[in-house]
């Protein structure tokens, strides 16, 4: 990973930067891991050639749209009818060594290998590869496909691997952000974020995010983790698959959600996974748990967009924070809460500041929404008599809370 990879304004210089960049990553290490994961028979890196060209010059007369026309159609059209400019095209096509012309042009993941005229014919051996490039940020003056092309050209030059965009064995990912660039080797064929879920609900947190949220709470053996608003129980499930020395509990007030949780858990238990997890149906504002019996709370609070509403959130966050404080052990207890609705959250954290002390908060991108994970620590105060559960209906003036 390279930080502070600032792109110069000139487009050609960007290309050069990306081309040269292909030399920088530690390929041997990456390839040895990849080789182990995929049991590739031979050593992928045979010989490494130095990059001597400036960058992969994109051929001025090839543009991707035209390429769509040239591949199959041209071969079938009889010579006489073929227009002049396309006739000439056919010659260079055959000379090209490894170019795969992908007729489906997409924004982010096209890589086409180019042969600039001074390049030698590279002996193609080793794993078939492709480059996928993902970009975030708006101030780049090149496209993802061009970036992938530069990088791929360099890799092909260095190692001599053949390019194959569809039947590839090795996928290299190039992530370009506004500030930094990193290169990764793809180790799994399917994305990891949908693992373990069978019954999907209206809003499911990615399994990878669930795992990391539980990790943020740093569970110790013998602790109890509760998700009072678990939905499909994705967070307790991810937690119990990794942290088996901890008890994971989840609960939701919605019957369908609880049924979904049961399905998800049963499916994994049938596959033979050992999971110390349990699910109940309860109201997060009135948790049926004893005082001080839980150590950690990890939860994905309703954002107020698909589930609930901003108005509901103001009351819900307050009530659930109070209930969470009641059931969590003082001093050592902690909470990791994810939400998009910053206003409701910040306001309510201030209200309950005698019970929960705010530690760090991290911004995270959930499907385009800029959400925040709040990490809270339980203070030593057992309960605050000034803070009472707010009732939703305003018929009675003040309902005394239970502690």
């Amino acid at each position, binding site marked *: 990973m390279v930080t502070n990879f600032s792109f110069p304004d000139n487009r050609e210089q960007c290309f050069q930067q990306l081309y040269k960049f292909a030399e920088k990553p530690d390929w041997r290490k990456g390839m040895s891991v990849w080789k182990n994961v995929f049991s590739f028979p031979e050593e992928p890196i045979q010989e490494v050639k130095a990059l001597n060209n400036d960058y992969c010059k994109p051929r001025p007369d090839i543009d991707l749209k035209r390429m769509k026309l040239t591949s199959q159609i041209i071969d079938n059209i009889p010579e006489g009818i073929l227009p002049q400019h396309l006739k000439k095209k056919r010659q260079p096509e055959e000379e090209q060594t490894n170019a795969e012309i992908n007729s489906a042009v997409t924004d982010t993941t096209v890589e086409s290998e180019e042969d600039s005229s001074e390049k030698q014919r590279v002996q193609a051996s080793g794993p078939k590869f492709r480059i996928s490039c993902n970009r975030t940020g708006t101030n780049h003056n090149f496209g993802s496909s061009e970036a992938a092309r530069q990088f791929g050209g360099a890799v092909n030059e260095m190692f001599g691997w053949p390019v194959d965009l569809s039947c590839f064995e090795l996928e290299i990912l190039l992530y370009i952000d506004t500030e930094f660039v990193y290169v990764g080797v793809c180790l799994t064929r399917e994305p990891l974020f949908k693992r373990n879920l069978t019954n999907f609900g209206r809003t499911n947190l990615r399994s990878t995010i669930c795992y990391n949220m539980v990790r943020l709470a740093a569970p110790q*053996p*013998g*602790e*109890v983790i509760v998700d009072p608003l678990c939905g499909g129980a994705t967070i307790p499930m991810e937690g119990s698959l990794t942290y*088996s*020395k*901890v*008890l994971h*509990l989840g*609960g939701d*007030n919605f*019957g369908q959600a*609880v*049924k979904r*949780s*049961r399905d998800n858990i049963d499916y994994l*238990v049938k596959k033979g996974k*050992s*999971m*110390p997890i*349990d*699910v*109940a*149906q*309860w*109201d997060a504002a*009135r*948790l*049926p*748990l*004893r005082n001080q*019996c*839980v150590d950690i709370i990890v939860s994905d609070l309703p954002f107020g967009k698909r589930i609930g509403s901003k108005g509901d959130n103001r009351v819900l966050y307050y009530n659930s924070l109070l209930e969470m404080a009641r059931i969590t052990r003082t001093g050592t207890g902690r909470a990791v809460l994810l939400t998009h609705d910053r206003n409701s959250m910040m306001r309510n954290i201030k209200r309950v500041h005698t019970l929960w002390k705010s530690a760090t908060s991290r911004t995270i991108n959930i499907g385009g929404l800029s959400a925040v994970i709040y990490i809270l620590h339980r203070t030593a105060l057992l309960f605050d008599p000034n803070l009472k559960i707010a009732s939703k209906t305003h018929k009675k003036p003040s*309902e005394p809370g*239970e502690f």
Partner: protein
Amino acid sequence: MKLITHNMLTSKGIKNVKEGFPLKIQADEVKNVDIDFDREFISRMIPKLDWNALTFAAQCVGHQEDLPDTLPEGYENDDDLLKKLHHILLEVEVINGCLECPETQRKFPISNGIPNMLLNEDEV
């Protein structure tokens, strides 16, 4: 619902209930699952459990004879006891039945392994 969860459930949300603990289990259908035995987990959980509630629950479910009435000293080294506890706490699951509040006798149904602890408007 596992018995370790039952050890933490209370019906204190209901109006006029002082303790609401422990809930009485009426188990119509019970199932055994396989969970990997972990000594450290069980030994660390024991001080957090309410032992009387646990023996009470074990009695309701039919595993009464396995547990002693009081927690013996030096339980960390008693592998036999730890294994029995592991079985009762994690591996015995109540699939159908209900939980009963000791003070109001209000029944919370358990269906498909999930206890429904939601309260009605008038009970709050």
